[in-house]
C-alpha cells in the first residue's frame, strides 16, 4: 500500500455533539416564550429581541476582529443566546439605544473582557441587565401590562409587576387577602398574563423550553429543580407561618424571573458548576438569595442578583465540591 494511513490516539469515534448544536437548541427552547411575549406585548417584544441579538452579534464580531484580532466565532450561537436572554430580561418598551448599551455591556464587559466563550465568570446577559437596571432604573422598571394582540388599544399601558404590588402592599401593612385582589390569578400568572420583562412572564412557555433542553440533553435537571425546590420550600415555610404577611409559594415560582432564571440563566455552562453535587449547592444558594431579596431586600425581585452572586461562588464550588469518585463506596457483598 503506498497511501499513508491516518494515525491518531483513541477514541476514533465522536458523539457528534457540538457547541453549535447545544447553543441553537437553547435558541429553539426560548422560542415558545418569545411567541407568548409577542401575544401579550406585541411588536415591541420582537423589535427589542431582534435589536438585542443583532447588537450582541455585531459587538462580538467587532471586538474579536478589531480588538482581539482573532477569527470571529459569532456563528457558534453563543452570542445569539446572550442576545436573546438579555432581551428576555428587558421591558418590551425599552428605548432602542438602551438595548444597544445593554448588549455592549453584556458582550464587551460580561463576555469578551474575560477572553470570550467559556471564560466569563458571570452570566453576560445578566451583567448587561443589571448594568441597565442600575443605570436606567426608570426605563427598566416601567413594565407594559399585557395587552393580548393589541385588543386593548394600540398604546401600551404600563404598571407594576405582581411582585412589586405585593412588596409595596405588604410594606404598607396590608394583608395578603386584600392584596390578592390586585394581582392576577395563579392561572393567569402561569400563562404569562402579567407585567414584566418580555421573556420572563409565561411559566408555561419556559417550562416547555425546559423539557426541550432536557430532551436534547443540553442541560440536566439539577440546577432548575434545586432552585425551584428551594424557593418553594423557603417561601412555603414563611407562608405557613403567616399567610397574611407572605405570598404563597406558587406565586413566588410563577412571578418575576424565577422560571427564566432557573431554566435558562442559572444553567449557563460557563458560569455554573460542572457536576450535580456542585449544581445542588449552587441552585440552593440561588433559591435562598432570591427569597431573601424578595422578602427582606430593597428590590421586589432578586433572581438576577442571586444568580450573579452564586456565579461568583462557582470557582470555589468547582474547587471544593468534587464529584464522588469511583471506588469511594466500597461494598462487600
Amino acid at each position, binding site marked *: *500500500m503506498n497511501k499513508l*494511513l*491516518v*494515525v*491518531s*490516539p*483513541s*477514541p*476514533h*469515534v*465522536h*458523539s457528534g*455533539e*457540538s*457547541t453549535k*448544536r*447545544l447553543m441553537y437548541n437553547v435558541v429553539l427552547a426560548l422560542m415558545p416564550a418569545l411567541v407568548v411575549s409577542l401575544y401579550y406585548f406585541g411588536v415591541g417584544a420582537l423589535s427589542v429581541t431582534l435589536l438585542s441579538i443583532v447588537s450582541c452579534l455585531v459587538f462580538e464580531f467587532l471586538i474579536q476582529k478589531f480588538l482581539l484580532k482573532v477569527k470571529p*466565532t459569532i456563528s*457558534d450561537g*453563543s452570542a445569539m443566546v446572550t442576545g436573546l436572554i438579555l432581551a428576555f430580561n428587558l421591558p418590551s418598551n425599552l428605548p432602542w439605544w438602551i438595548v444597544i448599551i445593554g448588549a455592549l455591556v453584556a458582550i464587551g464587559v460580561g463576555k469578551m473582557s474575560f477572553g*470570550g*466563550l*467559556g*471564560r466569563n465568570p458571570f452570566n453576560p446577559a445578566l451583567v448587561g441587565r443589571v448594568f441597565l437596571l442600575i443605570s436606567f432604573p426608570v426605563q427598566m422598571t416601567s413594565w407594559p401590562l399585557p395587552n393580548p394582540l393589541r385588543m386593548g388599544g394600540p398604546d401600551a399601558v404600563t404598571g407594576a409587576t405582581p411582585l412589586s404590588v405585593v412588596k409595596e402592599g405588604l410594606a404598607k401593612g396590608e394583608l395578603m387577602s386584600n392584596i390578592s385582589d390586585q394581582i392576577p390569578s395563579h392561572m393567569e400568572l402561569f400563562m404569562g398574563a402579567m407585567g414584566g420583562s418580555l421573556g420572563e412572564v409565561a411559566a408555561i412557555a419556559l417550562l416547555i423550553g425546559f423539557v426541550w433542553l432536557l430532551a436534547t440533553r443540553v442541560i*440536566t435537571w439539577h440546577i432548575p429543580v434545586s432552585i425551584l425546590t428551594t424557593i418553594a420550600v423557603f417561601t412555603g415555610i414563611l407562608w405557613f407561618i403567616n399567610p397574611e404577611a407572605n405570598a404563597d409559594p406558587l406565586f413566588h415560582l410563577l412571578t418575576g424571573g424565577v422560571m427564566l432564571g432557573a431554566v435558562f440563566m442559572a444553567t449557563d*455552562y*460557563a458560569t455554573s*458548576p*460542572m*457536576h450535580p453535587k456542585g449544581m445542588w449547592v449552587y441552585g440552593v444558594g440561588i433559591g435562598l438569595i432570591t427569597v431573601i431579596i424578595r422578602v427582606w431586600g430593597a428590590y421586589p425581585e432578586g433572581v438576577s442578583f442571586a444568580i450573579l452572586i452564586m456565579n461568583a461562588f462557582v470557582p470555589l464550588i*468547582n474547587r471544593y465540591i*468534587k*464529584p*464522588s*469518585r*469511583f*471506588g*469511594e*463506596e*466500597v*461494598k*462487600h*457483598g
Partner: protein
Amino acid sequence: MNMLKTFRKGGVHPPGYKFSAKKPVEVLPLPKQVVIPISQHIGAPAAPVVAKGDKVLVGQVIAKSAGFVSANIHSSVSGTVVSIGPALDASGYKKTAITISVEGDEWLPEIDRNATLKKDFSLSTEDIIAKINEAGIVGLGGAAFPSHVKLSVPKGKKADVLIINGVECEPYLTADHRLMLEKADELMVGTIILMKALGVKRALIGVENNKRDAIANLKQKASQYKGVEVQALKVKYPQGSEKQLIKALINREVPSGNLPIEVGAVVHNVGTAFAVYEAVQKNKPLVERVVTVTGKDIENASNFVVRIGTPISNLIDKVGMPEGTAKIVSGGPMMGKSLLSTDVPVAKGTSGVLLFSQNDAKRSEEQPSCIRCGKCVSACPMGLEPYLLIRLSQRNMLEKMEQEQILDCIECGSCTFACPANLPLLDYIRLGKTEVGAMVRNRKK
C-alpha cells in the same frame, strides 16, 4: 420488564455498528509467513528460545515467559524460523518478533485437535494454573494481562465470585458475541475450570442486552452447571471495563489503586475462558483467536479464527479493502490503536480490525474553546473531571494531577467522545498519567 442492571456513574452510548454479528466464525487460510512479537502481553517480554533456521511445530514454545507477570509465546504455524529481530507492531514501534515461514500445518502430537467436548474436572487448582501459564493465555478482551497472574490470589485476599466478561461494549466488535453463540459449551467448561482454579462457588457471566441470542443460548447451557448465572446488562459503554462490570453485576466498587480481588472478584473475558478450556482440556496453547474485520464500507464484515502472527493485510484482503480507506484500527473504535501499516501482525490481544473512510478517520478540525458544559464529567465512569485534568496536564502540574486521581483514569475515551468542543481530553490525560506514574515510581525508589 424488570430494570436491567448497569454501572451507575458516567458512561456513553456510541452507536453499535455490529455489522458482523450474524456472520459465523470462518477459519482464515494460513499465511505464507507469520511475525510473532515476543511482547504481546502486559509485563516482561518473553525470552526467545529458538534460533534462525530452527524448525518449529504448531504449539511449540518459541519464547519463554520471563518473570511472574509475563507469558509464554508459542509458534502458531509449522515451518522454519526466518529471523528474530525488530518488526512493527500495533503500538507503532518496532519490537522484537520471531518471523516464521509457513511449511504445512503440523501440530505438536500432545495437542488434541478433536472437536468433541471434553469435561474433565479432576485437575487440582495448581495444575490448572500451571497449564494456563504454560499455554501462554492472556486476557483476550484487549488488555492482554497474563491470566495465570489473575488466578494466583495473593495471600490474605479471597475471591468469592468469578465474573466472565461477555459485554463486548466496544462498537463494531462481534468476536466475543460469535464465541458465545458457537462455543457456549466450551465456554461453560472453561468457566467451571476457572471457578475451580479460584476456589469459588459462583460465576456470573455478564452480557449486554444487544446480544439477546447469546444470552438465551448461554442461559440454556448454564442451567446444566451449578453456580453459573448469566446476567443480561443494559447497554452502556464502558461496561466491559473490569471495575464497571463488577459494579454492574455485584454492586461492589474496587477502591482507587486496587485490583478487583480487593472486593473478592476476578474477571476474565469469554475469549479467555474459551482459551482456558482449550488449554486445560485439549492441551492447546494460545496460537489462534477470533478477530472481527469490519467497517461501514465493508459489505462482507466477518469474524475469523486467525493464527497469531498473521499479517493484518491477510485479513483485510479476505474481506476486500474498500476504496478510500484512510484509517485502520486494531481493536475497538473507543480504545483501539490506529495502525501505521497493514504489515502489523495479529497479536493475542487483537479483537478486531476496523477500516475507516476519510470522513470517519479524522477528528473535527473545529476546536472551539471549552464551554464548561460538564459533559466530560458526566461521561467519566470513574468520577473524574477531565476538563480539569486537561488543564493541569497542559501546565504539567504533576502533584495536583495526582491529587485529582488522574491515575484512576481507565482511558476509555468517553470524555473525548462526549466533548462538544472536540477537545483532545484523553490525549492530554494520557500524557499526564505517564508523567504522574513516573513521579510516583521514582518516589517509591
